[in-house]
């Protein structure tokens, strides 16, 4: 069953306290070549039927209305993959702009 992936990131111009905390930990662990970290969210939505344009339109709406808050975050991607991510081998089959 296809899975729709929604990626949400904190707005670039805003502070990302989580990312800063992770970056600080990486520096303390000796990863001096890592200069920054930003922490976002990935949502995986599964559907009861096939994913068509109408479904994607619906998910883009959900992404803006609930999954993200446009004051502090941006939806940076809505894409379809073959099934829920279980390993790093799963790759997006189709990528569409939000």
């Amino acid at each position, binding site marked *: 069953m296809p899975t729709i992936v929604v990626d949400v990131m*904190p707005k670039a111009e*805003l*502070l990302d*306290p989580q990312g*800063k905390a992770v970056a600080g930990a990486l520096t303390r662990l000796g990863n001096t070549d890592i200069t920054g970290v930003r922490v976002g969210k990935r949502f995986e939505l599964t559907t009861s039927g096939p994913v068509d344009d109408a479904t994607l339109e619906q998910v883009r709406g959900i992404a803006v209305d609930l*999954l993200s*808050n446009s*004051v*502090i975050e941006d939806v940076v991607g809505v894409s379809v993959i073959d099934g829920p991510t279980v390993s790093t081998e799963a790759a997006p089959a189709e990528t569409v702009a939000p």
Partner: protein
Amino acid sequence: MRIGVVTFPGSLDDRDALRAIRLADAEPVALWHGSHDLDGVDALVLPGGFSYGDYLRAGAIAAHAPIMSEVVDAAGKGMPVLGICNGFQMLTEAHLLPGGLIRNDVGTFVRRDQALRVEQTDTAWTNGFTHGQEIVIPLKNGEGGFIASDEELDRIEGEGRVVFRYLGVNPNGSLRDIAGVSNERGNVVGLMPHPEHATELGFGPDTRDAMRSGTDGLTFFTSAIRALQAV
């Protein structure tokens, strides 16, 4: 005068808010998130806590609770609505108030007795203060960083909708030291610090006079009563 307090799954300070309302000589009314009934209240408080464990974003899921359609409706008709901490986060998520709240820039939860300056007394919840008055009430949050775009900040400052600013210490990285804001009409106010925890001798912040004697928070609730009496 009946003032309702909505309890959500994960609300923590609903009972303190009900108590504060009673101490201000109004009738406290407990309301439930899953209902569509405001029980005829004259004003509303969305209390602090961690509704739905702050999952997704603080206040985001509660902002879509069944009772919120009635809250939004009542707010639009001018009913005084106060959002405290998690309640403030809900009001921003429900688009009743501008801006958003993100994790504290200090990277930790912060709990302290916090000094604030009252910047706007022409609201339903601050009319009993004097302009520029300094008050101290408890603050306790992990996601209290108030942010908005520069244009939005300029706009709300210009419209006099910054109601409270942090004094002395900015505890969470809030832009322009903003601790609380209002809607255009001034009936909806939200802030991160907790007025309901500074309403009774023996239980508030320390003052010069005596330990735990701070009751600056009581004026929020007496202000709402006064606003309702003036209608």
